[in-house]
Each structure stands twice: as structure tokens, then as C-alpha cells.
């Protein structure tokens, strides 16, 4: 996988290239032929992926939305009604918006916004249309991610991403669902790749443009809107983005401020609406206290005793919190926090570590477990499911091991490889915080899958370049001066990763 090192270092753009597009092209286009045989391979992998997608559509086409998908679709329908009312100058149905968009404050409305255009045109769209629409959107974002990776990292990397997760059947199936996990992972991939390009240019003295700042801010907030649990990833990537200030100096300040400004400006309407609804400060979602209680606390004590039977461990506590809120006038979110603290009184380091390990297994053990929902209504074809399960597992297991290996890579080869290594590590660690705070499910891996693929490729690439370096010694030196700081950060991140695993194992 040579592209990361063989492309030339960024030269300052020629003076006459004032037009930002011309400048960007001059900076990014690799030398030599515009299209290569590798591009053919990328196209072929994409084509096979699309065919597989089409084949798999039958598995979910008629399956009604279920679980959290219902909440996302409800929010999309309510938002479409809001637009309808605004266009026809009617008073919006605020009760509906509060019930279906804000709900219990569990989900940010990213998927809802993607479903809004569909329900705007087809308010009674059935599952076939909704699944097809979501599958189309997923495909578009996926192709954009591959194009961006090809442009910034090179063709080998794009080919890798076109094969994994693009040929993993279960991941393709999730592309038809309304859960935001998969799309959040793809947008995070776009964010990371774009950040690599921007920081690499900053390192060679070209500060980020306003357009870069705006785009990064937009990608960051989109990731959070799609899946609020990706907030640690976005925070980490944002922190690394501040390196632009270190490398490009004050000239990077305005783009950085623009990125933060766009992030906050898009976050604000949701945060304000949720905070007003619950009469307390809500930044992203309200679900963390109950997630902690259900993951690590005593579930029989969540409602200061057993919660009401006949419901779920998410709905029953919230109904109880609303009852306490009705009795006392306190915010239900405050009550949820108190319930969580009470249920976690007896948590010890030992019990916590054990629960994290259990959670980790929920996260990673059965990537195809969602087939229990994603099948034609009333009809489970065991043969098809067996094929999906075994094919998924056959790619998933090596991907996990390679991704883990990639988390240990410390490269000094080129600054771009270093940036990629740091950002992918931070991104994956940010996502893998999930089992430490929240009951994990067998769909969360779809967020991490593209980053895991990049991490895995990093492992393969670093072994490959090491071998090549031994065979053809110093034929081509580092093209893109590496940074000692980034070497240290990589080493620190790898060490933290190992330390966390060791500590959790030791405590459990």
C-alpha cells in the first residue's frame, strides 16, 4: 500500500493559482495517469458491493421499522409536518414536535433530518420506500468517503475501504436501516480523511481555508447528530485539529473558529430545544445516566426498587422519572441522574471491569445478531441468514485483529501516515469508549467498521513499507517530513490502549 509515501509532499501553491478549486487540484492530484488499474479495481469492488446491496434488499424491503428506528422515523415524520405547516402558514403542532422529535431526549435528530425529505413528499411511505431511500443515501455517503480517501490517502486505501466494510453483507444490510450508527461511521471517516489533508497542508505552511473550516465543522456536527455517542470521537478529532494552529500559526485561527462556530451553531437548536423541554441543561442526549445504571448498576434498584414490569429497561425508568417529576416539579432528567447514582451505589472497580468485559463481548461477538430483526416479516430463510452470518464473520474477525494491530502502529514514515495513524487511533478509541459507559449492542460495530478498516490497512501498510524498506534501502527517503510530536502521540495512544486492556483484565 505505497500511496501514502509515494505521493509528493505538498508544495506551496503557485502564486497565480488564486482560485481555490484550481489550487486544491494542484495540491491534491497525484502525479502520473489520472486513472489507473487500481481505479478499475476500486470501481469493480464498488460494483460488486452495489450488486450485493441490491441482492440483500429483499431481506429487509418489507420489514417494518422496529425499535429505535420507529423513533427516528417518527421524528422525520414530525419534521416533515413542521415544514408542511410552515409552507402553508399554519401553526406548527408543537405537541407533536415535542413528543416525536425531542421525545425522551434519547436521540439527536440526524436520521430524522435525512428521513424528512422522504416523508415530505410521501407522508405515508411504507417500509420498502423508506429502506430504499436510506440505502440510497448510505451508498452516496459511502462513495463520497471512498472518493475522499482515494484523493487524500491514495488508491490502495480507497480499494481497501471499497472491500471492507463494503463487501460485508451485514454492514450492507444495516445500510437500509434507520439506525444512525453506520452513517455516523462513514461521516466520521470523511471527517478524519479531510482532517488529514488539512493538517498535512498546515504542516507545510498552507493554512486551512475558510471552506476547509466550514466543511470540517459541518462533518463534525453531522457525525454527532447521526449518533450522539460519537461525541468523544469528534472531540478527539477536534483536539487534533488544533495542531493547525501550531503548524500554520495565526493564519489558521479564523478557519478553526469557523469550524467551531458551525459546530456550535448547528448543535444549539437541538440543545436549546431539549434543555427547554426538560427544564435543565441538555447538550446532546439525556440517556447517559440510565445507560450507566443499566450497564453497571443494580437493575433491581433503578427505581429505588424494581421499576414497573411489562416494559423495557429503558422505558420503565423514564416513566418512573416522569412520575417523580410530576410529584416534585423537578426535571425528569435530574431525577434520572439521581436514580442512576442510587442504582450504582455498590459499583466496585471489580464489578465495573467485569461489566465492561461483558459489554465488550456484546459489542463484538455477534456482528450478525441483528438478523433477528432484519428479515422479511414472518419468514426467516435460514439458508440466506447462514450465508450472511458466515460471510460477515469471515471478514469481520480478521478485520478486528488487523484493526487492533493498527492501533499499535507507530509510524515515522511520513507526516500524512502519522496524521492518519493518530486520527484513526483517536477515532476508534473514541468509539470504543461505548462499552465503558453503555450497554453495547450488536449494531454499534457498524460505526467503527470503516475506521477499523483504515486501522487494519495501516497495520498492513506499515509491515509492507518496512519490508520494502529493507529490500530497497533508502531508494526513496521520507517524502513528507515526519513529526516527532506525532510519533510521541501515536506511542502514547498505543500505550494507553494496551494499559486500559491490561487494567480492565487485572481488575476483573
Amino acid at each position, binding site marked *: 500500500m505505497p500511496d501514502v509515501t509515494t505521493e509528493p509532499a505538498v508544495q506551496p501553491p503557485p502564486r497565480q493559482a488564486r482560485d481555490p478549486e484550481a489550487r486544491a487540484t494542484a495540491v491534491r492530484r497525484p502525479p502520473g495517469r489520472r486513472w489507473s488499474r487500481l481505479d478499475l479495481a476500486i470501481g469493480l469492488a464498488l460494483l460488486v458491493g452495489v450488486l450485493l446491496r441490491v441482492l440483500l434488499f429483499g431481506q429487509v424491503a418489507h420489514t417494518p421499522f422496529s425499535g429505535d428506528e420507529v423513533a427516528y422515523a417518527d421524528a422525520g415524520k414530525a419534521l416533515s409536518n413542521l415544514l408542511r405547516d410552515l409552507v402553508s402558514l399554519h401553526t406548527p403542532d408543537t405537541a*407533536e414536535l415535542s413528543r*416525536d422529535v425531542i421525545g425522551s431526549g434519547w436521540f439527536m435528530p440526524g436520521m430524522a433530518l435525512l428521513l424528512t425529505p422522504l416523508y415530505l413528499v410521501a407522508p405515508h411511505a411504507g417500509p420498502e420506500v423508506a429502506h430504499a431511500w436510506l440505502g440510497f443515501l448510505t451508498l452516496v455517503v459511502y462513495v463520497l468517503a471512498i472518493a475522499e480517501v482515494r484523493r487524500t490517502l491514495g488508491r490502495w486505501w480507497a480499494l481497501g475501504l471499497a472491500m471492507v466494510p463494503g463487501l460485508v453483507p451485514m454492514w450492507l444490510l444495516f445500510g437500509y436501516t434507520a439506525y444512525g450508527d453506520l452513517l455516523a461511521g462513514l461521516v466520521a471517516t470523511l471527517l478524519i480523511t479531510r482532517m488529514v489533508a488539512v493538517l498535512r497542508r498546515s504542516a507545510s505552511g498552507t493554512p486551512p481555508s475558510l471552506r476547509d473550516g466550514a466543511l470540517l465543522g459541518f462533518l463534525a456536527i453531522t457525525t454527532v447528530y447521526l449518533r450522539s455517542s460519537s461525541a468523544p470521537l469528534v472531540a478527539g478529532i477536534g483536539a487534533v485539529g488544533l495542531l493547525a494552529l501550531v503548524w500554520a500559526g495565526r493564519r489558521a485561527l479564523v478557519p478553526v473558529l469557523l469550524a467551531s462556530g458551525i459546530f456550535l451553531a448547528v448543535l444549539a437548536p437541538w440543545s436549546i430545544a431539549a434543555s427547554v423541554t426538560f427544564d435543565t441543561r441538555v447538550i446532546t442526549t439525556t440517556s447517559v445516566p440510565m445507560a450507566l445504571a443499566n450497564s453497571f448498576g443494580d437493575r433491581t434498584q433503578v427505581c429505588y426498587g424494581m421499576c*414497573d414490569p*411489562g416494559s423495557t429497561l429503558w422505558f420503565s425508568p423514564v416513566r418512573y422519572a416522569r412520575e*417523580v417529576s410530576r410529584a416534585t416539579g*423537578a426535571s425528569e432528567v435530574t431525577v434520572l441522574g439521581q436514580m442512576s447514582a442510587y442504582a450504582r451505589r455498590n459499583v466496585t472497580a471489580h464489578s465495573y471491569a467485569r461489566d465492561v468485559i461483558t459489554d465488550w463481548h456484546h459489542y463484538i461477538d455477534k456482528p450478525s445478531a441483528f438478523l433477528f430483526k432484519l428479515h422479511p416479516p414472518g419468514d426467516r430463510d435460514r439458508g440466506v441468514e447462514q450465508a450472511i452470518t458466515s460471510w460477515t464473520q469471515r471478514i469481520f474477525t480478521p478485520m478486528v485483529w488487523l484493526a487492533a494491530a493498527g492501533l499499535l502502529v507507530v509510524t515515522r514514515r511520513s507526516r500524512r501516515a502519522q496524521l492518519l495513524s493518530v486520527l484513526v487511533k483517536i477515532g476508534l478509541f473514541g468509539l470504543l469508549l461505548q462499552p465503558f459507559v453503555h450497554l453495547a449492542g450488536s449494531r454499534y460495530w457498524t460505526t467503527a467498521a470503516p475506521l477499523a478498516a483504515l486501522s487494519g490497512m495501516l497495520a498492513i501498510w506499515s509491515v509492507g513499507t518496512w519490508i520494502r524498506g529493507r529490500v530497497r534501502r533508502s531508494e526513496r527517503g521520507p517524502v513528507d517530513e515526519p513529526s516527532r510530536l506525532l510519533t510521541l502521540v501515536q506511542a502514547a495512544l498505543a500505550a494507553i490502549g494496551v494499559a486500559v486492556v491490561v487494567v480492565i483484565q487485572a481488575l476483573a
Partner: protein
Amino acid sequence: MTAIAFLRRRWYLPLAALVVVLLLISPHVGRAEPTGDYRPALPADAIASGCYPLPRGMTIDFPYQVRRDGDVNGPHGRHRRLVLQYDEINAATARQRITTALHRAGLPDSAATVTSYPRIPSDSLVRGEIVLTLPSVAQQTDVPDAAQCDNPFSTKRFPPAWPPSTSYA
């Protein structure tokens, strides 16, 4: 400038036009109908609903939520066992107020057992539990919202077969 070159530079114009057209169509294709399943209306309070009222004269004048209600067989025959939690007040105040309430209905002090929850964080609104032993009462029909009387989440009279809400699928 050819049309294609124009569209390449101003790609957002047709997009914006499309959005406007869709918006203008939208009021004429009907309204979407969200299920609202993820935020159902909060069921009425078990006592305030009037489905299974407290004994005549008895009122509760502190914040509470009913946790369980129903008839059970005890040593003195069948009676109503009503479990509620008190909020914001300490056990002594809760005991004093519930005793006064019982007296108003002509019931003895022993009809209430007050227990404060052990090791409760000081900022917790919920403070403890009261178990009331009351005469059985039939379901009332003359109530503002009769549907609540058949809703166990409101009456807190749960069918024994309902599984606990603690497992994670």
C-alpha cells in the same frame, strides 16, 4: 458559458429549485402520522385517577408516587396493600403526615409502615417508602378517564405474568 459549465459552477441552483418545489407540493399530499410510541403520554396517578380511591377522608399532602397497589390475603383477611414512595421529606415528617391522613379516615397508626431508604444520597428527591394496609376497594366507574382504570401503568395493579423490565434483549 455552456449550460453544463453553468450547472457545474452553480450546482446548488437546481437543488434549491427542487427543494422549493418539494416544499410547495408537501401540504397537498397529506400529513405524516408519527406513532408517538417512544414518548407515550404519562399515565394518570393511581390515586388521582379515582379508579381505586383512598378511604373517605384520607388525602396525601406530600409528594409521592405509587409503586404497587392491589389486594392481598393477610392474617386478618383480604385487604388492600398500597405501596408508595415519599419525596423530599424525611421519614419522621412522612410518618407524622401519613398518620394524620389515616386518622382523618378513622384508620389506626399501624396501617402505615414508613421506611427510609438506606444510604440514600443527600440530594435524592425520593427518600423512602410507605406501605399502607387499607380496606379493599372496588374499581370505580364514575371517573373522568375510565381508560386509565384498565391501564396497569396507571393503577399499578400489574398482572402477575408481566415480566420484570430488567433484561436486555
